[in-house]
């Protein structure tokens, strides 16, 4: 039976990995991901989890090791943050091309410089084109649930792609909160053992990760893109089955009080909870505002998003990363691209908030919404605006 306990969210992530009965964990500790891999190394050392914990010398090696173990047919997990994710960069593209169902938790943290150990989404937004499935968690329960969902989706024979579960560093990873931990029998019902179609086996040799000569590279890339786009069906199916089993249903795009909303706030990750509190407060004052947030980020759930924002005149998109020298933040960019061909598309205003650990408050959301109402009447010159910048 599932048990409700007070637990640090990082530990809940590792408990989900333990319950998924992974075979190999290759990881390098980096703040604020540290507690996740520390706890996993403990449960392996204590014999609670029969897995190989590979303490590698860098994240580049961690991801390389994950490629090898996943190719050998092992259920494989790693976790990282910020500079660690950046150091993995060149290996990240190889996992989907080799169709390896690795699961990774990224405790989102700002990229240097200046050096920052604190939360924003600049690390993951620099990895938009790696062809991994990506989800974002809002709270500890979602972290636990999404990790199990990640293995289930990644290893589905129609998918066989790696999955990243994003959780906000510190603001989520280091918080103790109530989490319902499923028991092993419940998890086993949801997540069958991984049965690879092909794997590296000296008794039955195969070649993997070969060179893509010009005659085949384009086709290989198209194949990866197609399987990523088509993976959404399995992502949805796996959420439906999770809900049917455990009562918690998830959607790629979630709406909150959007009925009759003229302005809709768009968020991702743990600030969404604060945003809901802000929406409650503004609705009480009679402001027609609602909230839409992404749980699935890649493949980008465009149809679900368009349905969720239908009827709104204005979108206030909150980005947790800057795209310097570009048109706007990465989330707003994706949204604008998705809406460009739509008739009667809403106005989209982009607000950059919560960089490098700057708190995003209810007050910030009220400011964003009031600006969106004002800008809707008179479009401002700038394409995006940074919130809470202290200026002299």
């Amino acid at each position: 039976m599932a048990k409700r306990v007070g637990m640090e969210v990082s530990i809940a992530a590792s408990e989900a990995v333990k319950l998924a009965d992974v075979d190999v964990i290759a990881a390098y500790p980096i703040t604020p991901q540290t507690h996740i891999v520390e706890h996993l190394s403990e449960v392996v050392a204590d014999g609670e989890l029969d897995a190989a914990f590979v303490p590698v010398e860098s994240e580049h090696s961690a991801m390389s090791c994950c490629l090898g173990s996943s190719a050998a047919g092992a259920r494989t997990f790693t976790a990282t943050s910020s500079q660690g994710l950046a150091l993995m960069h060149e290996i990240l593209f190889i996992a989907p091309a080799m169709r390896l169902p690795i699961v990774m938790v990224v405790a989102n943290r700002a990229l240097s410089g200046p050096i920052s150990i604190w939360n924003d989404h600049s690390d993951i937004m620099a990895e938009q084109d790696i062809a991994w499935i990506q989800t974002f968690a809002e709270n500890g329960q979602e972290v636990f649930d999404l990790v199990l969902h990640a293995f289930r989706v990644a290893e589905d024979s129609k998918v066989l792609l790696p999955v990243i579960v994003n959780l906000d560093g510190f603001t989520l990873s280091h918080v103790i909160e109530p989490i319902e931990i499923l028991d092993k029998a419940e998890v086993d019902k949801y997540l069958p053992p991984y049965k690879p179609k092909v794997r590296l086996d000296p008794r039955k040799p195969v070649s993997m990760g070969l060179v893509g000569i010009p005659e085949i590279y384009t086709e290989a890339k198209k194949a990866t893109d197609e399987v990523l786009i088509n993976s959404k069906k399995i992502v949805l199916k796996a959420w439906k089955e999770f809900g049917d089993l455990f009562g918690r249903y998830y959607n790629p795009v979630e709406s909150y009080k959007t009925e009759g909303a003229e302005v809709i706030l768009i968020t991702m990750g743990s600030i969404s909870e604060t945003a809901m509190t802000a929406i409650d407060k503004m609705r009480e004052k009679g402001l027609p505002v609602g909230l839409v947030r992404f749980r699935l980020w890649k493949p980008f759930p465009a149809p679900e998003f368009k349905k969720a924002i239908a009827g709104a005149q204005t979108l206030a998109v909150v980005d947790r990363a800057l795209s310097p020298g570009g048109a706007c933040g990465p989330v707003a960019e994706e949204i604008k691209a998705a809406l460009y061909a739509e008739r009667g598309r809403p106005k989209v205003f982009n607000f950059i908030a919560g960089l490098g650990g700057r708190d995003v408050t209810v007050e910030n959301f009220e400011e964003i919404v009031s600006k969106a109402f004002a800008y809707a009447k008179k479009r401002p010159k700038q394409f995006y605006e940074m919130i809470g910048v202290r200026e002299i």
Partner: protein
Amino acid sequence: MIEIRIHGRGGQGAVTSAELVAIAAIDDGKYAQAFPSFGPERRGAPVAAFIRVSDKPIRTREKVYVPNVVMVLDPSILKIVNVAAGLKEGGTVIINTSKTPEEMARLLNVKAKIATVDATKIAMESMGVPITNTSMLGALVKATGIVSNDALGKAIDKRFGRIAEKNKTAFNRAMTETIIRES
């Protein structure tokens, strides 16, 4: 919803005490959050930790700006940190000090319910170390009743293992010795 800010120095167990309260509150069937002030904390440097406890699910990830309760694990912090900053009207301040609540009210110049206990003395006599967190939890429970003794006892057992008994002795003694002055 009750929001608590804990002040201490790195190594005194401010973060641990926040965690214990949240775990106990959740065990009591409530909703709670505990989190540290995120950063590179060092032993001896001023640190803060935060708790939220509510009967309803907590839907905010903001830091705690307007606490109902402030708890001070180390009296020397008072000279360098404005511990009463943002304290809600009618709030509570719980301090580790040998002074009386009346003296502390004058010193801090706040209109608040004040609870005092000599937690350093209790910690030294019960455990032999000046780690004041579990003693201060006794004062917190006495002054606010925020969690049940039962649930907190269980949380202490789980966290401290073989030194849990000493911590519970300190906790119980602080419960008895805490002096409270209503605002």
